[in-house]
Each structure stands twice: as C-alpha cells, then as structure tokens.
C-alpha cells in the first residue's frame, strides 16, 4: 500500500493561468519521513491542499492509502481528511478564543475515529491532551493562557499536539518552522520526529529551508515533480 499516489494529475487555478501543477506519476511510500522542497510560489502549499483533498484536480486522480480521494464527495472527503491527516501550518494554527486544551482536542470533535483512538489512550480527551502537552514540553502554566500570549514556538508545539491527537496516519506540515529561530527550530524538529516515531506516523514536511533535509530520509524537489516545467520523472536526491 502506498501512502500517496498521483495518477495523471493536473491542476491549475482559473484565476492564475501562470501557475499549474502537473504530476503524471508519483508514488510516495509509507514508513518514510518525506521532505518536499522548493522555492516560494512553486506550489508547495498547493501540493498539500491536493493530497488532503482541499483542492480538487482538473484531471487525474490522487490515491491516499489506496483511497481515491478525488472520487469522494465533500462530506466523505472532509471525514477522510480529519481521520487520516494531522495538519500543522506555518503560522496562526490555533483558534484564538479557545484554550490550549480545547484547541488540541478540536480534531476529535469532527472525527469519531480519532476520538476513539484518543480515548483508548486515556479516560477523557482533556487528559489525553494534557499527556501530549507533557510530552511536548507544554507546561501547565501555559494551559490557561490565552493563545495570543503564547510564543510562536509554544504555539507550534501546541499544533504538533493537535496534529497527533488520536493518531492519524499522516502528519502534514507546511513550513512550520519558518517563524522560529535556529534553537527553537531544532527543538521543534526533534519533538515532531520523536512523536512521529513514537506513534509510527508518516510525515510529509514541506519547506524551502534546505537545512532541514538532514532530518528526513526521502527528499523531493517540487519543481522537478511538476511536469509543467520539465518532462522528467521524479528525482530522488
């Protein structure tokens, strides 16, 4: 079973004709730490939108864990996403008016599968969230603070907790370290990788920051994957 498979995929935005993403054939394998690299504007976020089913291709199909998500309807696709993906954004990941704990358990509100898994670990969702916080060095004093008073590094660690609660299959991260300094960045990376290893989660990590490559065992250059620019098959470095 492959993690993600692209089949004759093409996407372009009606409002932006200068950009298109075409991937004829690509298989991302399971049990790998995948790094996708490329300069700003090359379509990294678009790529992640596509594999999480948030953006539908013009033609072609995308298979995630052998499910053709292109064929899923809206509701099924939303359900599939929350069941199987944990998502970390670049910035402003958290809902400002919810507490740290409430933010972390939010995926369990929308996914019964993840709620069940979380409750298998602990009696209540809150306790499970607290346990993850301890793992991620989120101290108790932070739990009661408004989100806006947390540092960016702290916010990103809360985002990891939210991504991994209820153990989805795949963690998606879109430049989560771009707002962090080097120390924080390394701390973030080691925590993220530790958690992925602990729960045996696949990781698809997107960044323009090539210095992070060393943490990963499979690296793609998006520009090379995109057949719009060249006719090469994907290149593994």
């Amino acid at each position, binding site marked *: 079973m492959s993690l993600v498979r692209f089949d004759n995929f093409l996407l372009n*935005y009606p*409002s932006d004709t200068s950009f298109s993403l075409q991937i004829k054939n690509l298989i991302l394998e399971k049990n790998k730490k995948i790094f996708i690299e490329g300069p700003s504007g090359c379509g990294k*976020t678009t790529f*992640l*939108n596509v594999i*999480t089913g*948030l*953006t*539908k291709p013009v033609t072609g199909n995308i298979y995630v864990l052998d499910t053709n998500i292109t064929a899923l309807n*809206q*509701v099924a696709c*939303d*359900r599939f*996403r*929350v*069941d199987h993906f944990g*998502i970390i*954004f*670049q910035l*402003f*990941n*958290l*809902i*400002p*008016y*919810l507490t740290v704990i*409430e933010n972390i*358990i*939010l*995926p369990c*509100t*929308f*996914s019964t599968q993840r709620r069940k898994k979380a409750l298998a670990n602990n009696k209540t969702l809150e306790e499970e969230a607290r346990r993850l916080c301890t793992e991620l060095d989120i101290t108790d004093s932070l739990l009661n603070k408004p989100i806006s008073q947390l540092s960016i590094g702290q916010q990103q660690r809360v985002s990891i907790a939210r991504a991994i609660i209820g153990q989805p299959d795949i963690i*998606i991260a*879109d430049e989560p370290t771009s707002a962090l300094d080097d120390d924080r960045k390394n701390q973030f990376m080691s925590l993220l990788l530790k958690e992925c290893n602990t729960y045996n989660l696949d990781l698809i990590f997107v960044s323009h920051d090539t210095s992070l490559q060393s943490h990963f065992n499979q690296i793609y250059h998006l520009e090379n994957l995109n057949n719009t620019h060249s006719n090469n098959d994907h290149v593994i470095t």
Partner: protein
Amino acid sequence: MSLLKLTLKRLFSRKVTSLLLILSIGLSTLLLVGVQKIKQSAKDSFSQSLSGTDLIVGARSGDTQLLLYTVFRQGQPIANMSWKSVKEIQTFPEISWVVPISLGDSHKGYPVLGTTLPYFKHYKYASKQPLKLKTGRLFQDVFEVVLGSEVAKHLNYKLNDRLFLAHGIAKGNLTIHKNYSFNVVGVLKPTGTPVDKTLHIPIEGFTALHIKGDKKTIKTYDLTPKSVTSCLIGLTSKISIFSVQKQIVNWKQEPLMAIIPGVTLSRLWDNIRTIDTAFFIITLLVTLITFIGLLLVLLISLQQSKRELAILRTLGAHPLQLSWLLILESLFITTSGVIFGLGLMNSFGYALKPFFEEKMGLILSFNVLTLPELYLALCIIFIGILTSSIPALLAYRKGLSEGFVSL
C-alpha cells in the same frame, strides 16, 4: 466540544461587539413591542372611556362632536336640549334609565359636570367598571362637589375644602361665581378616563350657579334645570336600540340626535390610526437599521475569521457546520437581544406606569406578554436568523470553493 460551545466561545471572544448588538436589538424590541403596547392600551382606554351606556342624546350636531363634548369635554360646545324632552324620553317603555349631563363651567381648567345621583351608578368604563369613591361620599346637597382623582390630587383638595366655580371652560380670566361656594364631600378613585379630570355637582347646583342670589335665598327657588347639555341612556333591552334612536331623531319638539357611543368611539379611533401607522413604520425602519447593523457585523466578522474558518475546515468541519456556526451566533444574539428588550420594557413599564396613568390616563399592563407581542418578538428572532443566512451562505460557498482553505 460541540458546535454550540464553539459558537458561545466565539461570541464571548468578541464581547464588546456582541454586547452592543444585543443592546441595539434589545432597544429595537423595546421600541417595537413598547409602541405596540402603548397603542393597544391607548386604544382600549379610549374606546372604553364609556361603557354600559347604550345611547347618548343631545341637540342635533355631528356625532363625533356630541361624543367628544359629552364624554371627553373636548371640542366645540353643542347646543342644549330641553329638560322637557329629557323627561318625556324617560317615559319610553324601552328605557331603563336616563342620566342628564350639564357642562360649560369649570374650575381652574377642570370641567364641571352637573348631573344626578344615578350617574354614579350607571356611568361605567373599561369592562363595565363602575365609579368608586376613594374617600367621602356622593353629593346630597345642592352645593356639594365630588372630585375626580386627578382634580383632587393636582389641586390638593381634601374633604370639606371649599371651592368656587367659574363660568366658561377656558383657562384664565373667567367670571367666577363668587356667591356660591361648593363643599368637597367625596373623591373618586382613578379610572384612566376623563372622569378623573371632572368636578361633579348636582344638576340643581348647576342651575343655581346661573341664578343671582345667595346660598340662603336660592333654596326657595325651583332649581329644576330648563335645559341640559345631553343625557346618557340605558335601555332595558339592546334590541330596541335602533327603534329608540329613530324615535329620538324624529323628535318633533326640537332637533335631537342619539348616538351609540361604541360605534362613534371606534370611528374616532380610526381617524387617529393614520398617525399610528406612521409611527409603526418608523419603528419598523429602526428595526431594519438594527438588522443591517447586525448583517454588517456578521459580514465583517466573516471576513476577519477567514483564517479561523479555514482551520476548522482543515480539521474536518463541513462547510454546513461553518454556516451553522454563524446562524447559531446570530440566533443567540437576537434571542438575547429580544429577551433583554422585553426585560427592559417591563422594568421601564414598571417605573413609568404611574406617569402613564397620571399624565396620559393610560392604564398599562406591562407584566403580561400578549399574543401579538409574542408574535412580534418571535418575528424579530426570525429576522435575525434570516439576516445571518446571508453570511452563512457566503461561508458555505467559500468553504466549498477551492482556494478558501490554504494551509
């Protein structure tokens, strides 16, 4: 965490905006329901100023003129009718009682009404409520006066005070009948009708006022009136109302007319209704403005919460759930607004009740929510939901469309 809890947290995070919205919807509700309430009370109190009287008889004039002058002591005075006619009408077999009324004199701006004792028994207001004494007794002697509640209160009269009456009804320099002083023997309870503003004296006293003399000699005169302003009539059976009316209209001795007070009162009210409609439209406009404000706030908040809705979408929230979030938010705001408005109305009503009763003669029942008011309140809540459906639809479409959600 449920969608409802999420909504409440979201609302709470925007305390000031939410509170202002609740306040403005509350004030609109107060205006809308309050106006409705005052209007209804005014109508009730107006059309029930006189009940239990089947016909009012007077010299021929306009029917509203006769009514306004006899019941409300307002408008142009009308010609008198002769006492002889009154006596003859009293002999009709269909007639149960006749109460004569003489008007035209006043005391410090308040009208004086000359009548007979049965007036206090047969004059009814609201749902057939009779007049009741607050203190003292009814008049028994020629120079005794029974005051309406407002007269006693404003002019600060107590029992056994003496007062002089003036000729004419305008305020200011009137000839005062100095030779006869009247003794206050009773004060009536408030009724919310023109009775509160009236001084009641025996019809013989009214006649005496216009005879030169003094209190001692006057008793030797025949004080039976020559004429009266009008009279109130009660019938033994309502069925005869039109035949009696016809007989009076065809009266040979002098030109008379007979009106049915209820009919004329509601016709009068219809004339006032145009102003009333205008007022209602203004209130509706105020409400409209409030809801445009609500729409504005919802649209701006939608704009501001793009990121947040995107996060919810990536976490698996369905676009419909995002719409629900906005609708629930608006439902909560409008419902709290309406409840606040009704609460405000009750407390205002409670505080202003004495004012309305005294200054306007309106007896308001603020603590009960009548059915039309309940409909009005539900209507406001419904409009709130309707208003939120616009941003909700936008959120739904944006949630569905590509590009809204970006990682």
